[in-house]
Protein backbone atom coordinates (compact mmCIF):
# COMPACT_ATOMS: atom_id res chain seq x y z
CA UNK A 1 0.00 0.00 0.00
CA UNK A 2 1.61 3.26 -1.10
CA UNK A 3 -0.23 6.54 -1.15
CA UNK A 4 1.52 9.49 -2.78
CA UNK A 5 0.23 12.93 -1.77
CA UNK A 6 2.28 14.68 -4.46
CA UNK A 7 0.30 12.75 -7.10
CA UNK A 8 -2.86 14.17 -5.55
CA UNK A 9 -1.45 17.70 -5.73
CA UNK A 10 -0.43 17.18 -9.38
CA UNK A 11 -3.95 16.01 -10.16
CA UNK A 12 -5.67 19.08 -8.66
CA UNK A 13 -5.75 21.31 -11.80
CA UNK A 14 -7.34 18.52 -13.83
CA UNK A 15 -9.70 17.75 -10.99
CA UNK A 16 -10.98 21.32 -11.05
CA UNK A 17 -11.40 21.27 -14.85
CA UNK A 18 -13.30 18.00 -14.60
CA UNK A 19 -15.44 19.26 -11.74
CA UNK A 20 -16.40 22.29 -13.81
CA UNK A 21 -17.49 20.11 -16.75
CA UNK A 22 -19.37 17.72 -14.44
CA UNK A 23 -21.26 20.62 -12.88
CA UNK A 24 -22.03 22.10 -16.31
CA UNK A 25 -23.47 18.78 -17.46
CA UNK A 26 -25.42 18.52 -14.22
CA UNK A 27 -26.95 22.01 -14.46
CA UNK A 28 -27.80 21.82 -18.16
CA UNK A 29 -29.02 18.23 -17.85
CA UNK A 30 -31.24 19.21 -14.91
CA UNK A 31 -32.74 22.08 -16.89
CA UNK A 32 -33.49 19.77 -19.83
CA UNK A 33 -34.97 17.09 -17.61
CA UNK A 34 -37.09 19.53 -15.58
CA UNK A 35 -38.64 21.15 -18.65
CA UNK A 36 -38.97 18.03 -20.81
CA UNK A 37 -40.42 16.13 -17.85
CA UNK A 38 -43.16 18.72 -17.59
CA UNK A 39 -43.96 18.20 -21.27
CA UNK A 40 -44.23 14.42 -20.75
CA UNK A 41 -46.38 14.96 -17.63
CA UNK A 42 -48.75 17.17 -19.64
CA UNK A 43 -48.82 14.40 -22.27
CA UNK A 44 -49.88 11.86 -19.62
CA UNK A 45 -52.95 13.96 -18.88
CA UNK A 46 -53.88 14.70 -22.50
CA UNK A 47 -57.50 13.90 -23.30
CA UNK A 48 -56.65 12.13 -26.55
CA UNK A 49 -55.34 8.57 -26.43
CA UNK A 50 -53.32 9.30 -29.55
CA UNK A 51 -51.16 11.59 -27.42
CA UNK A 52 -51.30 9.70 -24.14
CA UNK A 53 -50.26 6.26 -25.32
CA UNK A 54 -47.21 7.21 -27.38
CA UNK A 55 -45.96 9.45 -24.57
CA UNK A 56 -46.38 6.64 -22.05
CA UNK A 57 -44.70 4.13 -24.34
CA UNK A 58 -41.73 6.38 -25.14
CA UNK A 59 -41.08 7.40 -21.54
CA UNK A 60 -41.40 3.80 -20.35
CA UNK A 61 -38.93 2.68 -23.01
CA UNK A 62 -36.38 5.38 -22.22
CA UNK A 63 -36.73 4.78 -18.49
CA UNK A 64 -36.14 1.02 -18.61
CA UNK A 65 -33.13 1.02 -20.95
CA UNK A 66 -29.59 1.85 -19.81
CA UNK A 67 -28.33 5.40 -20.08
CA UNK A 68 -24.99 4.08 -21.35
CA UNK A 69 -26.58 2.42 -24.38
CA UNK A 70 -28.66 5.53 -25.04
CA UNK A 71 -25.47 7.59 -24.92
CA UNK A 72 -23.83 5.35 -27.52
CA UNK A 73 -27.00 5.40 -29.59
CA UNK A 74 -27.03 9.20 -29.73
CA UNK A 75 -23.26 9.47 -30.11
CA UNK A 76 -22.96 6.98 -32.99
CA UNK A 77 -26.37 7.15 -34.68
CA UNK A 78 -27.03 10.90 -34.80
CA UNK A 79 -23.99 11.53 -37.04
CA UNK A 80 -25.26 8.76 -39.36
CA UNK A 81 -28.46 10.76 -39.66
CA UNK A 82 -26.46 13.88 -40.43
CA UNK A 83 -26.75 15.57 -37.03
CA UNK A 84 -23.32 16.57 -35.70
CA UNK A 85 -23.09 17.40 -32.01
CA UNK A 86 -20.04 17.57 -29.77
CA UNK A 87 -19.61 14.82 -27.18
CA UNK A 88 -20.49 17.31 -24.45
CA UNK A 89 -23.78 18.29 -26.12
CA UNK A 90 -24.70 14.69 -26.89
CA UNK A 91 -23.98 13.63 -23.32
CA UNK A 92 -25.96 16.48 -21.82
CA UNK A 93 -28.94 15.80 -24.08
CA UNK A 94 -28.81 12.07 -23.31
CA UNK A 95 -28.66 12.54 -19.56
CA UNK A 96 -31.38 15.21 -19.66
CA UNK A 97 -33.63 13.05 -21.83
CA UNK A 98 -33.07 9.97 -19.65
CA UNK A 99 -33.89 11.76 -16.42
CA UNK A 100 -36.84 13.65 -17.93
CA UNK A 101 -38.70 10.32 -17.91
CA UNK A 102 -38.14 10.16 -14.16
CA UNK A 103 -39.10 13.76 -13.49
CA UNK A 104 -42.24 13.19 -15.59
CA UNK A 105 -43.36 10.58 -13.05
CA UNK A 106 -42.54 12.99 -10.23
CA UNK A 107 -44.60 15.76 -11.81
CA UNK A 108 -47.44 13.34 -12.50
CA UNK A 109 -47.56 12.32 -8.84
CA UNK A 110 -47.41 15.99 -7.81
CA UNK A 111 -50.25 16.96 -10.12
CA UNK A 112 -52.35 13.98 -9.03
CA UNK A 113 -51.86 15.05 -5.41
CA UNK A 114 -53.53 18.44 -6.03
CA UNK A 115 -57.05 18.05 -4.54
CA UNK A 116 -59.87 17.61 -7.07
CA UNK A 117 -61.61 20.64 -5.53
CA UNK A 118 -58.92 22.89 -7.03
CA UNK A 119 -59.74 21.66 -10.54
CA UNK A 120 -63.46 22.09 -9.88
CA UNK A 121 -62.92 25.59 -8.51
CA UNK A 122 -60.96 26.52 -11.64
CA UNK A 123 -63.81 25.16 -13.77
CA UNK A 124 -66.38 27.02 -11.67
CA UNK A 125 -64.45 30.27 -12.17
CA UNK A 126 -64.37 29.37 -15.88
CA UNK A 127 -60.62 29.96 -15.99
CA UNK A 128 -59.04 29.23 -19.37
CA UNK A 129 -56.83 26.10 -19.56
CA UNK A 130 -53.51 27.94 -19.35
CA UNK A 131 -54.64 29.92 -16.30
CA UNK A 132 -55.86 26.71 -14.62
CA UNK A 133 -52.45 25.14 -15.15
CA UNK A 134 -50.12 28.05 -14.47
CA UNK A 135 -52.06 29.92 -11.76
CA UNK A 136 -53.77 27.10 -9.86
CA UNK A 137 -52.41 23.60 -10.39
CA UNK A 138 -48.69 23.94 -11.09
CA UNK A 139 -47.84 26.31 -8.19
CA UNK A 140 -49.34 23.76 -5.78
CA UNK A 141 -47.92 20.72 -7.54
CA UNK A 142 -44.36 22.05 -7.97
CA UNK A 143 -44.02 22.84 -4.29
CA UNK A 144 -44.58 19.18 -3.43
CA UNK A 145 -42.18 17.80 -6.01
CA UNK A 146 -39.07 19.86 -5.14
CA UNK A 147 -37.48 17.25 -2.82
CA UNK A 148 -38.11 14.41 -5.29
CA UNK A 149 -36.59 16.46 -8.09
CA UNK A 150 -33.60 17.15 -5.83
CA UNK A 151 -33.09 13.41 -5.39
CA UNK A 152 -32.99 12.96 -9.14
CA UNK A 153 -30.43 15.75 -9.51
CA UNK A 154 -28.21 13.79 -7.10
CA UNK A 155 -28.85 10.59 -9.07
CA UNK A 156 -27.93 12.50 -12.23
CA UNK A 157 -24.68 13.66 -10.62
CA UNK A 158 -23.77 10.04 -9.98
CA UNK A 159 -24.50 9.15 -13.60
CA UNK A 160 -22.31 11.90 -15.10
CA UNK A 161 -19.19 9.61 -15.07
CA UNK A 162 -20.89 7.62 -17.83
CA UNK A 163 -20.11 10.51 -20.14
CA UNK A 164 -16.46 9.50 -19.92
CA UNK A 165 -17.43 6.63 -22.25
CA UNK A 166 -18.01 9.12 -25.07
CA UNK A 167 -14.84 11.04 -24.10
CA UNK A 168 -16.42 14.05 -22.36
CA UNK A 169 -13.69 15.54 -20.15
CA UNK A 170 -15.56 15.23 -16.86
CA UNK A 171 -14.13 14.04 -13.53
CA UNK A 172 -13.69 10.35 -14.37
CA UNK A 173 -12.21 11.00 -17.80
CA UNK A 174 -9.77 13.52 -16.30
CA UNK A 175 -8.63 10.92 -13.77
CA UNK A 176 -8.13 8.38 -16.56
CA UNK A 177 -6.09 10.88 -18.57
CA UNK A 178 -3.99 11.66 -15.50
CA UNK A 179 -3.41 7.94 -14.90
CA UNK A 180 -2.45 7.42 -18.52
CA UNK A 181 0.05 10.30 -18.35
CA UNK A 182 1.67 9.56 -14.98
CA UNK A 183 1.05 5.80 -14.45
CA UNK A 184 -0.45 6.68 -11.06
CA UNK A 185 -3.70 4.72 -10.94
CA UNK A 186 -4.49 4.82 -7.25
CA UNK A 187 -4.60 8.50 -6.39
CA UNK A 188 -6.62 10.20 -9.19
CA UNK A 189 -9.43 7.63 -9.17
CA UNK A 190 -9.64 7.62 -5.37
CA UNK A 191 -9.73 11.42 -5.23
CA UNK A 192 -12.55 11.48 -7.79
CA UNK A 193 -14.50 8.83 -5.87
CA UNK A 194 -14.13 10.78 -2.63
CA UNK A 195 -15.12 13.99 -4.44
CA UNK A 196 -18.40 12.39 -5.48
CA UNK A 197 -19.17 11.30 -1.92
CA UNK A 198 -18.24 14.77 -0.64
CA UNK A 199 -20.69 16.40 -3.06
CA UNK A 200 -23.50 13.84 -2.89
CA UNK A 201 -23.73 13.35 0.90
CA UNK A 202 -24.30 17.01 1.88
CA UNK A 203 -26.62 17.39 -1.11
CA UNK A 204 -28.78 14.49 0.02
CA UNK A 205 -28.84 15.89 3.56
CA UNK A 206 -30.01 19.19 2.09
CA UNK A 207 -32.79 17.46 0.15
CA UNK A 208 -33.88 15.60 3.28
CA UNK A 209 -34.07 18.84 5.25
CA UNK A 210 -36.10 20.39 2.44
CA UNK A 211 -38.42 17.38 2.49
CA UNK A 212 -39.01 17.73 6.22
CA UNK A 213 -39.63 21.46 5.95
CA UNK A 214 -42.09 21.18 3.05
CA UNK A 215 -43.92 18.29 4.69
CA UNK A 216 -44.83 20.47 7.67
Amino acid sequence: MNWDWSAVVDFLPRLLDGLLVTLQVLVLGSLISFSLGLVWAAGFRASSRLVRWPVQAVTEFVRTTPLLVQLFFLFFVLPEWGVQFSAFTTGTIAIGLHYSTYTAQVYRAGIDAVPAGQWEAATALSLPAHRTWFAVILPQALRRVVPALGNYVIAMLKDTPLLAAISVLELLQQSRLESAATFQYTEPLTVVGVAFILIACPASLLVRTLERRLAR
Partner: protein
Amino acid sequence: MTAGLWQTWVLPGIWITVQLLVYSAALAAVVAFGVGMARTHCSRLVRVLATVYTEVFRGTSALILMFWLFFVVPPLLGWQLVPMWAAVLALGLSYGAYGAEIVRGALNAVAPAQREAGVALSFTPWQRMRLVVLPQAVPEMLPPFCNLLVELLKGTALVSLLGVGDVSFAAYLVRLATQESAQIYSVILVVYFLIAFVITRSMKALERRTKANLGVVAK
Protein backbone atom coordinates in the same frame (compact mmCIF):
# COMPACT_ATOMS: atom_id res chain seq x y z
CA MET B 1 -26.64 -8.03 -39.41
CA THR B 2 -25.85 -11.67 -40.08
CA ALA B 3 -26.72 -14.75 -38.06
CA GLY B 4 -23.05 -15.26 -37.28
CA LEU B 5 -22.85 -11.97 -35.40
CA TRP B 6 -25.88 -12.97 -33.37
CA GLN B 7 -24.41 -16.31 -32.43
CA THR B 8 -20.88 -15.23 -31.64
CA TRP B 9 -21.56 -11.95 -29.83
CA VAL B 10 -25.12 -10.88 -29.15
CA LEU B 11 -26.63 -14.07 -27.71
CA PRO B 12 -23.67 -14.82 -25.39
CA GLY B 13 -23.82 -11.12 -24.47
CA ILE B 14 -27.44 -11.44 -23.41
CA TRP B 15 -26.51 -14.51 -21.34
CA ILE B 16 -23.67 -12.60 -19.61
CA THR B 17 -26.03 -9.70 -18.87
CA VAL B 18 -28.57 -12.07 -17.31
CA GLN B 19 -25.83 -13.76 -15.25
CA LEU B 20 -24.54 -10.38 -14.04
CA LEU B 21 -28.08 -9.38 -13.13
CA VAL B 22 -28.69 -12.56 -11.12
CA TYR B 23 -25.37 -12.54 -9.27
CA SER B 24 -25.40 -8.87 -8.39
CA ALA B 25 -29.09 -8.99 -7.42
CA ALA B 26 -28.27 -11.86 -5.05
CA LEU B 27 -25.37 -9.94 -3.50
CA ALA B 28 -27.47 -6.76 -3.32
CA ALA B 29 -30.30 -8.65 -1.58
CA VAL B 30 -27.91 -10.03 1.05
CA VAL B 31 -26.41 -6.56 1.63
CA ALA B 32 -29.84 -4.88 1.65
CA PHE B 33 -31.34 -7.21 4.25
CA GLY B 34 -28.18 -7.30 6.37
CA VAL B 35 -27.63 -3.54 6.42
CA GLY B 36 -31.36 -2.71 6.48
CA MET B 37 -31.94 -4.87 9.54
CA ALA B 38 -28.77 -3.47 11.15
CA ARG B 39 -30.27 0.00 10.79
CA THR B 40 -33.16 -1.03 13.04
CA HIS B 41 -30.83 -2.80 15.51
CA CYS B 42 -31.05 -1.82 19.18
CA SER B 43 -27.27 -1.18 19.50
CA ARG B 44 -26.28 2.35 18.57
CA LEU B 45 -22.87 1.32 17.22
CA VAL B 46 -24.41 -1.15 14.75
CA ARG B 47 -26.90 1.49 13.59
CA VAL B 48 -24.17 4.10 13.05
CA LEU B 49 -21.98 1.66 11.08
CA ALA B 50 -24.91 0.66 8.88
CA THR B 51 -25.83 4.31 8.27
CA VAL B 52 -22.25 5.16 7.30
CA TYR B 53 -22.26 2.23 4.86
CA THR B 54 -25.46 3.32 3.12
CA GLU B 55 -24.42 6.98 2.97
CA VAL B 56 -21.00 6.18 1.49
CA PHE B 57 -22.22 3.69 -1.10
CA ARG B 58 -25.25 5.76 -2.02
CA GLY B 59 -23.00 8.79 -2.35
CA THR B 60 -20.57 7.26 -4.77
CA SER B 61 -21.14 6.50 -8.41
CA ALA B 62 -21.43 2.80 -9.32
CA LEU B 63 -19.16 3.29 -12.33
CA ILE B 64 -16.40 4.92 -10.26
CA LEU B 65 -16.69 2.18 -7.64
CA MET B 66 -16.33 -0.39 -10.43
CA PHE B 67 -13.23 1.29 -11.84
CA TRP B 68 -11.84 1.65 -8.36
CA LEU B 69 -12.31 -2.04 -7.53
CA PHE B 70 -10.76 -2.98 -10.86
CA PHE B 71 -7.82 -0.55 -11.14
CA VAL B 72 -6.98 0.64 -7.61
CA VAL B 73 -7.60 -2.36 -5.36
CA PRO B 74 -5.20 -4.77 -7.15
CA PRO B 75 -2.04 -2.65 -6.68
CA LEU B 76 -3.08 -1.75 -3.13
CA LEU B 77 -3.78 -5.30 -1.97
CA GLY B 78 -1.73 -7.30 -4.43
CA TRP B 79 -4.55 -9.43 -5.82
CA GLN B 80 -6.55 -9.01 -8.98
CA LEU B 81 -10.29 -9.36 -9.47
CA VAL B 82 -11.70 -10.88 -12.66
CA PRO B 83 -13.60 -8.01 -14.38
CA MET B 84 -16.87 -9.92 -14.06
CA TRP B 85 -16.51 -10.21 -10.27
CA ALA B 86 -15.31 -6.65 -9.82
CA ALA B 87 -18.49 -5.64 -11.62
CA VAL B 88 -20.73 -7.89 -9.52
CA LEU B 89 -19.08 -6.62 -6.34
CA ALA B 90 -19.50 -2.96 -7.32
CA LEU B 91 -23.10 -3.36 -8.46
CA GLY B 92 -24.07 -5.55 -5.49
CA LEU B 93 -22.50 -3.23 -2.90
CA SER B 94 -23.92 0.02 -4.28
CA TYR B 95 -27.41 -1.23 -5.17
CA GLY B 96 -27.45 -3.10 -1.85
CA ALA B 97 -27.11 0.28 -0.14
CA TYR B 98 -30.21 1.53 -1.98
CA GLY B 99 -32.00 -1.69 -1.08
CA ALA B 100 -31.07 -1.25 2.59
CA GLU B 101 -33.09 1.98 2.65
CA ILE B 102 -36.10 0.10 1.25
CA VAL B 103 -35.73 -2.67 3.84
CA ARG B 104 -35.40 -0.15 6.66
CA GLY B 105 -38.47 1.79 5.51
CA ALA B 106 -40.59 -1.36 5.24
CA LEU B 107 -39.44 -2.67 8.65
CA ASN B 108 -40.28 0.66 10.27
CA ALA B 109 -43.70 0.68 8.59
CA VAL B 110 -44.78 -2.50 10.40
CA ALA B 111 -47.15 -1.51 13.21
CA PRO B 112 -45.25 -1.27 16.55
CA ALA B 113 -47.96 -3.36 18.21
CA GLN B 114 -46.83 -6.35 16.12
CA ARG B 115 -43.33 -6.08 17.56
CA GLU B 116 -44.71 -5.63 21.07
CA ALA B 117 -46.91 -8.70 20.61
CA GLY B 118 -43.75 -10.62 19.71
CA VAL B 119 -42.10 -9.37 22.91
CA ALA B 120 -45.19 -10.32 24.94
CA LEU B 121 -45.02 -13.85 23.51
CA SER B 122 -41.35 -13.88 24.62
CA PHE B 123 -40.00 -14.50 21.14
CA THR B 124 -36.26 -14.02 20.72
CA PRO B 125 -35.37 -10.94 18.58
CA TRP B 126 -34.55 -13.23 15.67
CA GLN B 127 -37.87 -15.13 15.96
CA ARG B 128 -39.66 -11.79 16.14
CA MET B 129 -37.97 -10.64 12.96
CA ARG B 130 -38.45 -13.94 11.09
CA LEU B 131 -41.98 -14.85 12.18
CA VAL B 132 -43.71 -11.52 12.80
CA VAL B 133 -42.03 -8.50 11.21
CA LEU B 134 -40.53 -9.82 7.96
CA PRO B 135 -43.64 -11.61 6.62
CA GLN B 136 -45.50 -8.31 6.88
CA ALA B 137 -42.64 -6.11 5.65
CA VAL B 138 -41.62 -8.14 2.59
CA PRO B 139 -44.78 -7.50 0.48
CA GLU B 140 -44.27 -3.78 1.10
CA MET B 141 -40.69 -4.02 -0.16
CA LEU B 142 -41.52 -5.72 -3.43
CA PRO B 143 -42.71 -2.74 -5.54
CA PRO B 144 -39.61 -0.60 -4.73
CA PHE B 145 -37.40 -3.69 -5.15
CA CYS B 146 -38.90 -4.13 -8.61
CA ASN B 147 -37.83 -0.59 -9.56
CA LEU B 148 -34.40 -1.19 -8.06
CA LEU B 149 -34.01 -4.41 -10.05
CA VAL B 150 -34.70 -2.53 -13.27
CA GLU B 151 -32.13 0.07 -12.18
CA LEU B 152 -29.68 -2.77 -11.54
CA LEU B 153 -30.34 -4.16 -15.01
CA LYS B 154 -29.49 -0.75 -16.44
CA GLY B 155 -26.42 -0.67 -14.20
CA THR B 156 -25.11 -3.92 -15.70
CA ALA B 157 -24.48 -2.04 -18.97
CA LEU B 158 -21.59 -0.26 -17.19
CA VAL B 159 -19.52 -3.46 -17.15
CA SER B 160 -18.96 -3.15 -20.89
CA LEU B 161 -16.56 -0.29 -20.04
CA LEU B 162 -14.41 -2.80 -18.12
CA GLY B 163 -14.37 -5.06 -21.16
CA VAL B 164 -16.82 -7.66 -19.86
CA GLY B 165 -18.58 -9.14 -22.90
CA ASP B 166 -22.15 -8.27 -21.99
CA VAL B 167 -24.82 -7.26 -24.48
CA SER B 168 -23.68 -3.60 -24.61
CA PHE B 169 -20.13 -4.72 -25.38
CA ALA B 170 -21.54 -7.01 -28.08
CA ALA B 171 -23.28 -3.98 -29.58
CA TYR B 172 -19.96 -2.16 -29.69
CA LEU B 173 -18.25 -5.08 -31.47
CA VAL B 174 -21.10 -5.49 -33.95
CA ARG B 175 -20.94 -1.79 -34.65
CA LEU B 176 -17.23 -2.07 -35.46
CA ALA B 177 -17.86 -5.12 -37.65
CA THR B 178 -20.82 -3.83 -39.65
CA GLN B 179 -20.04 -0.07 -39.60
CA GLU B 180 -23.70 0.51 -38.82
CA SER B 181 -24.91 1.85 -35.49
CA ALA B 182 -28.64 2.51 -35.75
CA GLN B 183 -29.69 -1.09 -36.28
CA ILE B 184 -27.64 -2.82 -33.59
CA TYR B 185 -28.18 -0.16 -30.94
CA SER B 186 -31.94 -0.20 -31.54
CA VAL B 187 -31.92 -4.00 -31.17
CA ILE B 188 -29.92 -3.78 -27.94
CA LEU B 189 -32.26 -1.17 -26.47
CA VAL B 190 -35.22 -3.45 -27.23
CA VAL B 191 -33.39 -6.39 -25.61
CA TYR B 192 -32.95 -4.39 -22.39
CA PHE B 193 -36.57 -3.27 -22.54
CA LEU B 194 -37.76 -6.88 -22.87
CA ILE B 195 -35.62 -8.08 -19.94
CA ALA B 196 -36.99 -5.20 -17.85
CA PHE B 197 -40.52 -6.15 -18.91
CA VAL B 198 -39.99 -9.74 -17.74
CA ILE B 199 -38.63 -8.43 -14.41
CA THR B 200 -41.60 -6.12 -13.74
CA ARG B 201 -44.14 -8.81 -14.71
CA SER B 202 -42.60 -11.48 -12.48
CA MET B 203 -42.22 -9.07 -9.55
CA LYS B 204 -45.93 -8.16 -9.87
CA ALA B 205 -46.81 -11.87 -9.76
CA LEU B 206 -44.55 -12.38 -6.73
CA GLU B 207 -46.18 -9.42 -4.98
CA ARG B 208 -49.64 -10.91 -5.54
CA ARG B 209 -48.45 -14.26 -4.14
CA THR B 210 -46.88 -12.83 -0.97
CA LYS B 211 -49.89 -10.59 -0.32
CA ALA B 212 -52.25 -13.53 -0.81
CA ASN B 213 -50.24 -15.46 1.79
CA LEU B 214 -50.92 -12.64 4.26
CA GLY B 215 -54.62 -12.60 3.42
CA VAL B 216 -54.37 -9.10 1.91
CA VAL B 217 -55.95 -8.66 -1.53
CA ALA B 218 -53.46 -7.07 -3.93
CA LYS B 219 -54.61 -4.21 -6.08
